[in-house]
Structures are given as C-alpha cells and as structure tokens.
C-alpha cells in the first residue's frame, strides 16, 4: 500500500465519532520496547541499528493487525511526508528526524503505528477518536504480546521493561488524551486545572507533546509515572482525571452561556469574521480561530452539519498538510496566503453564528435549576 493512498483518507481518530469526541479529540497509548542484546538507538552504531531494524521490521509487518499496512524506511520518506505523519500523530517529531536505520509501519485505518528505532527500538502506538483509552490499550497490548513472543525484549526482574530513558522504565507506557478545552481557557480556569492535574502526577502538554504550546485550546493529558503501578491502574487513574476535566469543561461552557454570553458571541463572531475574510493566516492563528468555531458548533451557534468541515480544517491548515495538498514546497508567506484561501473557500457557505437559541436555552436551564434548587430548600 502506497503512502499517498493511506494519506488520502483521513485517519479513524480524525473522523470524530468516538465517545465524548466533541471534547476529547483522541486517545493515544504507546509502549516502549527494546531488544535485549542491542544498544539503544541513540547510542547504537549504524550497523546495530540496521540489525535491529532488519530483525524487528518483518515481525511487525507480519502481525495480523498489520495485514493492510504501510511500511517505510525513514530514508525513503520525504521531509514533507514525515511532517504529514507527525501532524497526524502517527510518528513523533523525534522519529521524523531519523534517517537510515529507522522505519515506520502503520495500518491503513491509521489507528496503529509502530516506530522502529525512535528513542527506543520499538514504539508501539495506538490512537483512536474520543475517550477510549482502555480500548486503545487493548490493541497495543495485543500487538506487544505477539511481538514479545517473537522478539527478545529487554526485561528486568525488578525494573520491568527497560527503556533508553529512565522516565519510561517499567511499563514503558505513556497514555494520553487530547482535549479541546476552550471553555476552561475563556473562563480562565485552565491554569488551576493544569496545576491540579500536575498535583496527581499527570502531565499537561501542548498539541505536539513535550515542550510544545497549547495551540487551538488543545491540551494533552498524560501519565508521567511508568514504574510501580500496573498498566490498568495508570489507565484508570488517568481516565478518572480526564472525565473530571471533561465535566469541568462542560460546566464552564454552560456557565459562560448563562453568565457571559457576550464573551462567547464576541469570540465566536470574531473568529468567524476573520476566518471568512482574511487573506493571510499563520497556522497558529488558524488553530486558535478554528477552536472558537468548533466551540460554536458544540454550543449550537452553527448547525451540526458544519462540524466535519471545521474538524477537517484543523488538519488541512497544518503546514505539511497544506503543502501536500498544493503538491509543492512553499515559503512561509505563500503558505499563509494559501491557508487563508483554503479557509475562505471552504467556509464560503458556512452560515453566520446564531447564538440566540443556545443562550435562551442556557437561561431556561438556569431558571429551571434555580427553581429546582429553590424547591429543594423549601
């Protein structure tokens, strides 16, 4: 299967039909594994890296889960193709920087990808739409078990699975959810939430992982601890925290509708205006404005059938996707112009935001709630 065929279809996680997918964009789980008798990729000589690659790649390709897979050596992928894979979260930024000695194997649905010779010999990753960490874990766990029967994984009696970085040792598992949290950002509660999440030993990161900005009100919540807790325990704890954040976001939105409707109308209205009429737009700006538009769809300011278009624009306006669609490498300025053109064209028939109904409904709900609360105290 050729890469362009795979990339012509958007991944399963982008379709947005998983549980709670309006707010939880995707769930991701990755396992880090290494082969016993080889140095870790960052320290290994090229011959060792190639030996690992030639040993592991056929095993990964022969998995039943990879029956309809795309597989490529890193040196055979162009910089642009790699960047497209990064934007789809199918390879990490670190892996995209690799050349000879590394490879990636992914399934057609783009729910499973195995990076060979990233920071560790194997990074087995699953990604699905919405909040379904346990399902994603089941998938990568199955793949890991199958590979563990054929490959001699480095495993220590006390420390568990050994990884290049000691922050991953033990389960080698990093689980994360990508959340869209404009309500918490607009109501200025996000910093409190981040602090609270950090307090329970979980990390909050930006769109592309460690050290990246939280663009488009998108946040990744993930576990930090990999040693001393079972996989299921880590997932349960993470899931609980994500559900709480989800509730906070829902409440923040309801509260904004009731108490600060003008703030919402203004943000969504401005985003709509700029997206519809701009002629040059950087990807950061696009993400932030599209986030407001997405919030507008969630709140019913825009019709529900506009959702897919907005979700697609999130991906299509990313630098590599933009260049891929135009079939050429573009300078930053040209990209910004093209981005604005695409957004304007795609949103040409998008209706104006109409917040009246949603705000009325918000008021009614509040009234009902007040009456109910009042009734209870009597």
């Amino acid at each position, binding site marked *: 299967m050729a890469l362009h065929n795979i990339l012509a279809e958007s991944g399963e996680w982008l379709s947005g039909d998983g549980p709670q997918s309006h707010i939880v964009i995707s769930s991701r789980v990755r396992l880090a594994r290494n082969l016993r008798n080889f140095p870790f990729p960052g320290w290994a000589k090229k011959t060792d890296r190639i030996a690992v690659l030639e040993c592991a790649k056929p095993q990964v390709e022969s998995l039943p889960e990879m029956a309809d897979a795309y597989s490529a050596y890193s040196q055979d992928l162009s910089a642009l193709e790699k960047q497209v894979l990064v934007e789809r979260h199918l390879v990490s930024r670190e892996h995209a920087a690799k050349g000879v000695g590394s490879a990636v194997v992914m399934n057609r649905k783009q729910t499973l990808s195995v990076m060979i010779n990233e920071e560790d010999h194997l990074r087995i990753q699953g990604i699905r739409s919405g909040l379904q960490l346990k399902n994603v874990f089941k998938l990568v766990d199955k793949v890991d078990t199958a590979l563990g029967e054929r490959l001699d994984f480095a495993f220590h009696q006390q420390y568990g699975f050994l990884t290049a*970085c000691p922050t991953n040792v033990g389960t080698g598992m990093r689980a994360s959810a990508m959340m869209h949290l404009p309500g918490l950002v607009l109501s200025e509660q996000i910093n409190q939430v981040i602090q609270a999440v*950090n307090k329970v030993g979980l990390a909050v990161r930006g769109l592309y992982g460690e050290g990246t900005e939280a663009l488009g009100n998108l946040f990744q919540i993930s576990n930090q601890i990999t040693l001393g*807790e079972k*996989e299921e325990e880590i997932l349960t704890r993470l899931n609980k925290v994500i559900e709480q954040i989800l509730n906070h976001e829902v409440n923040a939105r309801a509260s904004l509708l009731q108490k600060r409707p003008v703030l919402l109308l203004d943000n969504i209205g401005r985003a709509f205006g700029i997206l519809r009429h701009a002629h040059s737009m950087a990807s950061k700006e696009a993400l932030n404005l599209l986030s407001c538009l997405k919030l507008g769809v969630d709140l019913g300011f825009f019709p529900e059938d506009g959702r897919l278009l907005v979700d697609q624009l999130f991906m299509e306006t990313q630098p590599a996707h933009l260049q891929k669609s135009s079939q050429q490498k573009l300078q930053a300025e040209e990209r910004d112009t093209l981005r604005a053109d695409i957004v304007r064209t795609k949103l040409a028939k998008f209706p104006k935001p109409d917040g009246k109904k949603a705000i009325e409904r918000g008021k009614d709900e509040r009234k009902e709630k007040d009456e109910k609360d009042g009734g209870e105290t009597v």
Partner: protein
Amino acid sequence: MNCDVCKQKPATVFLTQIVDGKMQKVNLCDACSKEKGVTDPKGFALADLLLGLGASEEMERGGTGLKCPMCGFSQADFKKTGRFGCSNCYEVFADGLEAMLKGMHKGTTHTGKVPQRLLKARQHADELKRLQRELRKAVDDEKYEVAAQLRDQLKHLEPGAVGEV
C-alpha cells in the same frame, strides 16, 4: 513523587527545560518552587541552579568513572543525554539509579505486565523452588512417602533437578 530540593513534600511543580538541546527536568513542591522563584516566569533562569539537583547528580553519587562493559556507555554520557546506552546499563549504574527512579516514579519495582515468555519461565522456576523446599521439609520430617511423591513431581517438571536437593 517528592520534591527534588527538600525531598520531603510531594512535588507539585514539574519543570522541563531545554538547554542547548538537552532536556532537563526538576520536580519541586509548592514551598520550594516559590522560594526558588520558579513560578515567576522571569525567575526561570534560576532553574539552572536547581537542575544541578536533577537526575545526573543522583547518578554521580553511584560513583564516577563507571563504564558499561557491554556498550561502553559512561556516567558522563548519561549526564549529557539523560538516556542509557543499553539494557545492561541498568545493572552497571544500579547504585545511583534507585534514588533517581524513586524521584521519578511510584517506587522502584515494576508491578505491571511481564512478557509471556518470561512469565512461563518464572512460573516454572517458582514451582521448582516450591517443590524443592517441600521435599527438603518432608525429608527432614521423615515423611518419606510424601518425599517420594514430591521427587516424582520434580522429576516430571525438570529431569535432573532432584539431584540438587
């Protein structure tokens, strides 16, 4: 996860800094983070001082000049990269490792998944040990009938294992 400075209170501020392309991490409790001015964005440079208390220092306590015989990785390399060279490094640098892992994780013992192959081998070894222990006890207690049964089980499990008793 405890604070890297006072080592007593739980860490609530997790600082990751990239200096010259190297990633450094430090975990602080509320009080220490305020004291060191980490929560103030202008005070971030102070973190450099704090990072001296990070992982690489813990490793050095395990002894300097150590090198992994398998891959040639040294303490200095760990300080530079924050990564190990190969799986054997976990044995070579075990001394400093415990303290470092304690700071990063919940304890230092893996409780999760075990690869199927090892699981079988481990169960086998555990069963072997149990039978040998019971056999020894039966012999000591002069319960020869039980001992004979156990010996047969052992033989079945692993021919040759009986001789070790």
